[in-house]
């Protein structure tokens, strides 16, 4: 079974969500977030590509994905493809994190990924993540506790 955390770039909110899921991150900690594998990576060429993050305690494979604003479309496509190829409709839990984007994460991501102002961009992204951290944590915990289908 796969859990896919998807956001715009596949290198900020999705990475934080996957880290919360795996217990790497419990509370908001800027230093820790910066040190997480994949955080802030330039993923422009990897948009659309599933990136394996790790396996959780229930042996679910955790992925991160950058799909810009097309999370819903990707979700429908993967659910459909999963059925067509007989992988079972419960093979994928797709978590579209676009709703957790805010003006800071959007602007920061743009500065960092598109204009290569990595330091300034990441600072803004972190402000944005901090603002939504508790909501994000609640969502991920629900996902983590979800019984295996």
């Amino acid at each position: 079974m796969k859990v896919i955390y998807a956001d715009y770039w596949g290198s900020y909110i999705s990475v934080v969500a996957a880290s919360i899921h795996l217990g790497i991150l419990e509370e908001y900690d800027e230093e820790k977030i910066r040190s997480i594998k994949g955080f802030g990576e330039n993923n422009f060429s990897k948009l659309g590509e599933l990136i394996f993050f790790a396996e959780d305690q229930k042996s679910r494979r955790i992925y991160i994905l950058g799909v810009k604003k097309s999370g819903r479309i990707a979700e429908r496509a993967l659910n459909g493809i999963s059925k067509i190829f007989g992988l079972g409709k419960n093979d994928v839990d797709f978590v579209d994190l676009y709703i957790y984007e805010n003006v800071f994460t959007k602007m920061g991501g743009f500065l960092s990924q598109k204009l290569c102002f990595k330091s300034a961009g990441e600072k803004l992204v972190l402000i944005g993540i901090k603002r939504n951290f508790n909501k994000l944590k609640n969502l991920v915990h629900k996902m983590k506790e979800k019984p295996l289908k």
Partner: protein
Amino acid sequence: MKIFYYCYGSAHSSVIAAAIHVGYLPKDRIPKDEEFLKIPYFDKTDNYEIGTPFLMGKDEYGNEVYIIGMTNEREMIKKTIISFLKESGIDLNQIHMVDTLHLVNLKTKIGGLLSRRFKLVNVGRPLTIRGIQEKYFDFVNLVMKVKRRMSEN
């Protein structure tokens, strides 16, 4: 083998190509307006269905033919599907994806916008059909190329 014809909204160009492929539409003449209207999914898919693959039928070789809409992010969503299949251990030779949007002309674009986005079906639908009729043999050629490729494999 599963063949996916994809376009913006899975309402026009992918539907036409898939319909030719499975034999709902002829290869040797331009269909009449009413023939288009009988095709499943033609000018019907709604916004909330974009991304969902729909089965159109099977071809003479037993290949399943699907349509799927992927907006302007077609290459990115295609990459998502391919990487998902790889991660699931599916042999990628089982899938063939064909972009059809480049066959859409201005009439079909405007007609599609009027019909799907603004729900002006009575104005938009005939315009989409007119546009497709003008480009019909380009659709046939594309499908023939796909079929040739399938038979070579």
